[in-house]
Structures are given as structure tokens and as C-alpha cells.
């Protein structure tokens, strides 16, 4: 298994490397779950002041999609995709510090939750404006194409965000230029309180790919194995110049829209139904079928994730606040080249 704060290794085809890879995915998924549960708790304890959007229940998606990614690939996560940061090897302590607004966080306290991004790990800090990150991911893919780099850009978005005009503009142009970009829709059936059928008149967001001249895929977002198998195949094809792809992952949001939301607009039965499709036991069952001693593994990993998360919390809590005046920093980058004159004609 990889280091706790190391990025998941790219998917090896088979053998013991494959086994290690599969176990690492399990570890990653568990780490995300543990991390997010702790975040929710910290929010209840008023230790995280900003909005907290839990991806609990959707871990298989970020895990499975990010698994085949390489250094230099570009990812624009959704507001619920804290897991992307962990999967790509961002230090959990810095991530926790980010959520608390500390100086050691990704944005140095400037912004909250996931808006900090971490370009060193190829993670774009999306704005709050849903859908607006898709054009950006397309621009990253355009850069890869122009420069002939074998990288891909991945843009996550919700089925709610799919209604934004930016999503259309981005997908259309990606289709025209056959850009190396993968659009990943996490369809969790709700956008805040708004159910699917008020958001769109069709069943699958993936069907929209046809409107842009590329392929759409539907997969169970709660089945890590299925997501990984699909994403390995699709990302490989996109990387090799096959043009864009749209992957729709059917899933469900366990918690409220944000931690403030009791989600009373939802049916209890629905939640029970979906919790019974939880990605973690499902993947454990797979590992068991593969002959692993899942009990022992679970125990060991629970211990490990607990430690990692606790260390992250400790790091974040012990980190200093940013200096008040640092609010005026980081607005502008220095110019690349000095200007040659004072602007007076010589």
C-alpha cells in the first residue's frame, strides 16, 4: 500500500502489484470516509466555520476515477470531492488546516473548504459557481492538446450543476476539438433539496454526450470496482487522443446538502435503500471474494486512518491563524518580465 499521504499509484495490470493497488483503493476509500466523518464532527463542534459539504457515500467515485490518473493530469473537483485531495496525495494535515482556515492550509486561510485547490497535485480550486470549473478543465485539456502532452483533465460535477450553461459550452467545445477531458457527473439525485426530475427531463446525464459528439457511460457510483474498471478504460482512451468522454456515476448523498441541512425533503426509505448500497461493504465483499482476510485488513486500516486523521486534526489545530494583514497578499502574481521603460516614449 502506498504511503498515507502519497498519491495512489497508477493502475498496474496484474499480479501482486494489482493486489496492492486494489487494497490501496480500499484504504483510500476508508481514509476519505474517516476524514469526512471527522470533518462533520468538527463542524458540529464549531471547529470548522465555513460550509461543509459531505461526500460520504460517494467515495467510490472519486477513488475510482482518480485511480488511473498520473502526475501532471488536471482535476477540477466538485464541492463534495474532498476525497480527490486525499487520492492525489495532498497532505491530510494541510487539507484539514485548509478547512479550518489556518495559515498552513492550501489557501493560507484565504478561502474555505475545497476552493483552495492544490495545483502542485494537479487539483484546481473551483469557485462556488457550479459548472464554472468545466470550461477551465477544458482549457487545461486544450493546453495538453496544443503541447502534445499525454495528459488528461477531469472535471467533476453534480447532476444539479449539469443545468448550468457553462457545462454545455465546455462539453460542446471539447467535442469540437476532441480534447483529452473526462467529464464526471456524480448524480446523487438531489441538488440541495431539488430532486432529479425538477432538474432535467431525462434519466441519464450521460445521454447528453451524444449531443456533443462523444461517448457517455453510466456506472454505479457505489461500486468501486465498476468505477475503476470503467475509468481505467475510458481515461486510457482519452489519454491516447480518443477525444472526450462523459461518465455518469449513479449515487446518493447520505447527509444533508451541507451540514446545516437536515434534508427533511427526502424520504427516509430512500436513504435506507441507498445506505444498503454503501460502496465500502460492497468493495469489502469483493476483496473477500478475492481471498483477502477482510476483517484483519479492516482493523489494520481503521487503525491507520484513525491515526492519519488524528494527526491531521492535531496539525491543523496547532497551526497558527494567518496574520490579519495577509488578507492583502496573494492578490497579484509578479509579472513575468519587467517592463522596458516607464512608458514614456524614448
Amino acid at each position, binding site marked *: 500500500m502506498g504511503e498515507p499521504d502519497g498519491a495512489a499509484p497508477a493502475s498496474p495490470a496484474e499480479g501482486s502489484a494489482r493486489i496492492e493497488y486494489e487494497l490501496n483503493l480500499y484504504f483510500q476509500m476508508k481514509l476519505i470516509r474517516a476524514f469526512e466523518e471527522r470533518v462533520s464532527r468538527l463542524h458540529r463542534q464549531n471547529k470548522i*466555520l*465555513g*460550509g461543509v459539504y459531505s461526500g460520504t457515500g460517494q467515495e467510490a467515485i472519486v477513488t475510482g476515477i482518480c485511480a488511473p490518473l498520473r502526475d501532471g493530469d488536471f482535476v477540477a473537483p466538485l464541492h463534495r470531492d474532498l476525497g480527490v485531495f486525499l487520492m492525489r496525495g495532498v497532505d491530510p494535515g494541510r487539507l484539514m488546516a485548509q478547512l479550518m*482556515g*489556518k*495559515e498552513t492550509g492550501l*489557501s493560507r*486561510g*484565504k*478561502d*474555505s473548504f475545497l*476552493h483552495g485547490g492544490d495545483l502542485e497535485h494537479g487539483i484546481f480550486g473551483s*469557485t*462556488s*459557481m*457550479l*459548472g*464554472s470549473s468545466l470550461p477551465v478543465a477544458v482549457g487545461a485539456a486544450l493546453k495538453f492538446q496544443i503541447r502534445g502532452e499525454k495528459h488528461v483533465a477531469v472535471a467533476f460535477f453534480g447532476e*444539479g*450543476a449539469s*443545468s*448550468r*450553461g457553462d457545462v454545455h459550452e465546455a462539453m460542446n467545445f471539447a467535442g469540437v476539438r476532441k480534447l483529452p477531458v473526462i467529464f464526471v457527473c456524480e448524480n446523487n439525485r438531489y*441538488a*440541495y*433539496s*431539488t430532486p432529479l426530475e*425538477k*432538474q*432535467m427531463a431525462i434519466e441519464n446525464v450521460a445521454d447528453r454526450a451524444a449531443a456533443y459528439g462523444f461517448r457517455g457511460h453510466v456506472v454505479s457510483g457505489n461500486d468501486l470496482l465498476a468505477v475503476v474498471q470503467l475509468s481505467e478504460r475510458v481515461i486510457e482512451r482519452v489519454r491516447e487522443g480518443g477525444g472526450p468522454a462523459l461518465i455518469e456515476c449513479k449515487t446518493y448523498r447520505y447527509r444533508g446538502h451541507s451540514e446545516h441541512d437536515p434534508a427533511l*425533503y427526502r424520504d427516509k426509505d430512500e436513504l435506507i435503500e441507498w445506505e444498503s448500497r454503501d460502496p465500502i461493504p460492497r468493495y469489502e465483499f469483493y476483496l473477500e471474494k478475492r481471498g483477502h482476510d477482510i476483517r484483519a485488513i479492516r482493523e489494520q486500516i481503521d487503525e491507520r486512518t484513525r491515526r492519519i486523521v488524528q494527526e491531521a486534526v492535531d496539525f491543523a489545530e496547532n497551526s497558527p*491563524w*494567518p*496574520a*490579519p*494583514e*495577509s*488578507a*492583502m497578499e496573494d*492578490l497579484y502574481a509578479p509579472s513575468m518580465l519587467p517592463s522596458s521603460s516607464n512608458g514614456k516614449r524614448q
Partner: protein
Amino acid sequence: MEVTYLTAINQALHEEMRRDESVFIMGEDVAELGGAFKVTEGLLDAFGENRVIDMPISESLIVGAGIGAAILGMRPVVEMQFSDFIACAFDQIVNTAATLRYRHGGRAACPLVIRSPSGAGVHGALFHSQNPEAWFTRVPGLKVVAPATPYDAKGLLKSAIRDGNPVLYFEHKRLYRSIKEDLPEGDFTVPIGVAELRQSGKDLSIITYGGTLNQCLDAARIVEKEDGLSVEVLDLRTLLPLDREAILATARKTGKVLIVHEDRVTGGIGGEVAAIIAENAFDSLDAPIRRVGAADTHLAFSPPMEEFILPNSNKIVEAIRSLAAY
């Protein structure tokens, strides 16, 4: 009955929808949820799905559809879930709505209200704290209001709904549950375009609106007590059109003007107000026109920075003192 700022808005919506069948609501999560802040609570039950409509996440469409319905005689009240997202509907507001009557040669109207919860001080960070009002105060054809009290929140929303034009209604989300006021029974409105003198004074004038009104009043109380200063406080209430008469009257009266808003100093409406005064009340001025507002940066998340950035009564007191001593 004493009601919060939030309840005042909710009441206005209920009453106007009852009064006029053409009034209806569109926005994200406004129906069953009653809105992210519960501003539209109860409306679905009272008026049904045809008049309280949950919309997809499509800000441009929400405003554009509001325009289409408004042209045909409806009076839509659309909601931006947070005012920050208004940038996604920018073209529809400044191009389609603002020019509508003009480009139809006066033979069309667009009675549309766009409600936007705005403002900072609630740990909202860059994208849930914005004060976008000054983007719109430079656009003819629009009206822009920003109530600071429950009374004005209710009265201005009613006027906005009854107005024949696109009105941007910025409600400050920090005020939702933090201020209360006893409202009169029965229908009342607050006219658009009329500022309100919140406090009379003779040494110095503060011109403000929205989220900083109470900070200004606090500051005025402090300097009255501690420095014996008599401060006049003018609440603009409407930002487009500005109440130039009221602005000039207070400037001429005290000769010293401090403009305060939560919006950033640079590019906030304070510049426009200062320019109006510097152009039209120059002879009455006894001191530089000063501005206090958010620092010229984004609304950072971390509390020490948020505190650094935002105006507060201490910073206002300081500015009053330096101006008084001029």
C-alpha cells in the same frame, strides 16, 4: 408585532402574492425547502406549485425566464440563492432586462424583482459574502435597493414588486435574524429612491446603507458619549437612483462627510456618492470626504482576515474622530 428582517421579507412576499395574482416566485430550492435561508417558507403551501417554482441550477435562465414572464404582465420575484451567483446571470440583467423598455421604444415593461442575499460577516468566504450592488448601480434601466431594517425590508420589497421595472433587491444575510422591529399592521410601502435620515446631527454626516447602518449608529452613539460629537446618519436605502437631494442636504448641513459601506472601498458606490458631493456641495465642505469600507481584496475566510477586511464600529469611530478633528 416584532419581526425579524427575514420575517419581514417573508411577509411582504405573502402579502403581495395574496394581493396580486400575477406575482410569482422562481428560484433554486424556494418551494419545498422554502429557500436556503427560509425566506420563502410557507409560500408553496399558500400558493401552490404554479406560483412558487423550484428551478434548475440555471441563474441565467431564472432571470431570463423572469423577464419573459414580466413582459407579458406577470410580476416575477426571482431569487439568487446567494447574491454571489448573480454573476452567472449578468448578461440577462444588464443587457436583456435593463435595456428592455428602452429598446422597445417605451412600449414594453419589465416588472421583475431579483432578490439576492448578499453581504459578509458570516464566514461565507469569497463566494458567499459578496456585495455585488455596485455592478448594477451603473446600469440605467435598473433600480437597486438595499434595506437595512425590517421595516424597509418589507416596504421596499413591496415597492419593488409594484414597480414597473427590473429591481435588484439586495437583502443582507447577516441581518436576517439579527435585527427585529415592530412593524405596523396593514399594508405599507417604502418608496424607491428616497433615503432616510436615521439620526440628525450637526458635526458630521455619515452616509451608509444595508449591512453597515447599525455599525454606523453604534459608532455615532460612542462618539456622542465619549467625544460629544453630534453625528447625522443617512441611510441611502436605494442605490439606484440615488437620493441626491438627501445626500447633498446632509453634506451641506454638516460640511463633513464619511461614507460607509460593507462593499469594498474601490469601486463601491461610495465613490459615486463622493463625486456627487465634490461636484455639487463643494463650497459647503469643511474637510476631505472620507470612505470606510471593506479592504480592497476578496472576502477572505479565516476569521482574523475577515475581521481585518470588514468595516466595523471601531473603524468607523476612528474615521469619525479623524474627520471631526480636521
